[in-house]
């Protein structure tokens, strides 16, 4: 249908100020310093698994279009290895921003996975189990 066929056009609505502020507050980071050099994405070891590159996530946040990144896979792929943050010329800790996005989802009572359905606990090191519980479950 023609009306839905216009999906390619991105209509920038009013910025989601509330969520933007929330992300800034939870992460403590200055989103708007990002000038899109792409250094974060260039060095990210797992960017190839993400549908949004880290710098793309930053752009969405600057535009105030938060929902797409909140519902993205990218934020759950990031494990905070800090390559992005250690190289960002603007000193933005992108890992903290990813954590803030995950936190917002988790605080909406979202579980990324149910660990008991997925694994036999004794197969995994405790650190992996604890980290998964903390990072992926509400």
């Amino acid at each position, binding site marked *: 249908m023609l009306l839905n066929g216009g999906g390619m056009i991105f209509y920038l609505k009013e910025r989601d100020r509330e969520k933007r502020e929330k992300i800034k*507050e*939870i*992460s*403590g980071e200055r989103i708007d310093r990002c000038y899109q050099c792409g250094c974060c994405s260039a060095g990210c*070891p*797992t960017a*190839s*698994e993400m549908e949004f590159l880290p710098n793309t996530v930053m752009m969405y946040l600057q535009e105030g279009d938060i929902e797409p990144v909140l519902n993205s896979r990218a934020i*759950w*792929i990031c*494990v*905070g*290895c*800090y*390559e992005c*943050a*250690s190289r960002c010329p603007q000193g933005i*800790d992108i*890992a*903290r921003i990813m*954590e*803030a996005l995950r*936190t917002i989802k988790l605080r909406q009572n979202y579980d*990324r*996975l149910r*660990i008991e359905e*997925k*694994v036999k606990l004794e197969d*995994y*090191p*405790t*650190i*992996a*189990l*604890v*980290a*998964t519980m*903390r*990072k*992926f479950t509400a």
Partner: protein
Amino acid sequence: MKLLYYPGCTLKTKAKALEESAIEFARELGIELIEMKEWNCCGTSFNLTTDNFMHQLGPLRNLIRAEKLGAGILTTICSICYSTLWRANDKYKADPSFTHRVNFFMDEEPDYKGTVEVVHFLRLIKDKVGFDRVNELVRFRLDGLKVACFYGCQLLRPRELAIDDIEHPTILEDFVASIGGVPVDFAEKIECCGNYETIAEPQVVANRVYSIISSARKSGAELILTSCPLCHFNIDKSQVLLRETIAGFKPIPIMYFTELALYCIKGEYAESSFAQNLIDPHPSLSRMRTKE
């Protein structure tokens, strides 16, 4: 030298070999690692938000107890415990009001004064004992064994906690050279192994490990060395998967740096060594000889 030591959960379960070999290795160096009493989970992985107090309770309680025991230095062996405790400690020192608020949730503990320094075992050996001393103790030589040192992310980033240069670290290589191995450089040594994604997204970890192993293999590595139980687990386990799915894939065994050191000094491994290994390191180690 007696040092207070924080083991962490995995060293008591999946990475017993790391703990046993580290304690034994330390003893050879004249260091007595004294396990701190009443430790709890380090708080893994370090929480990156500004407003989550609950996730800070674990690390803070450990630090308070270490402080109570009068430890200036708290030694860690697991890379993730090192990272988590170091970062937590750094945050508590920088922001006393935050620390006070976290402390408020556990009124049975005194306030943290910030006197503890979290140090990784490898850095400690380098600074307090010196690799020259390690070299003197070596009685069994590796006979040209090519060793790829895998740092992963937790020992190097963020910059402030790095145990060595963040882009081109050499501390593990220097260590390998001191026990008679041939350290080989490889591009992926500072990259992430996939960390805790191992449960939620094992394919992501497998892809990372493939990349790491390819890079290490290119440099001719016969063995990979690590100090991280999760890197150890991920690299070991994913290689089994990779071997099954990719024709011609040749895995490289992984060991803890302490296990190898202990062997070079005593000619034996810790009792629990290799019990958890899926990729057997014995073929790589078979060439080792007694030092003349």
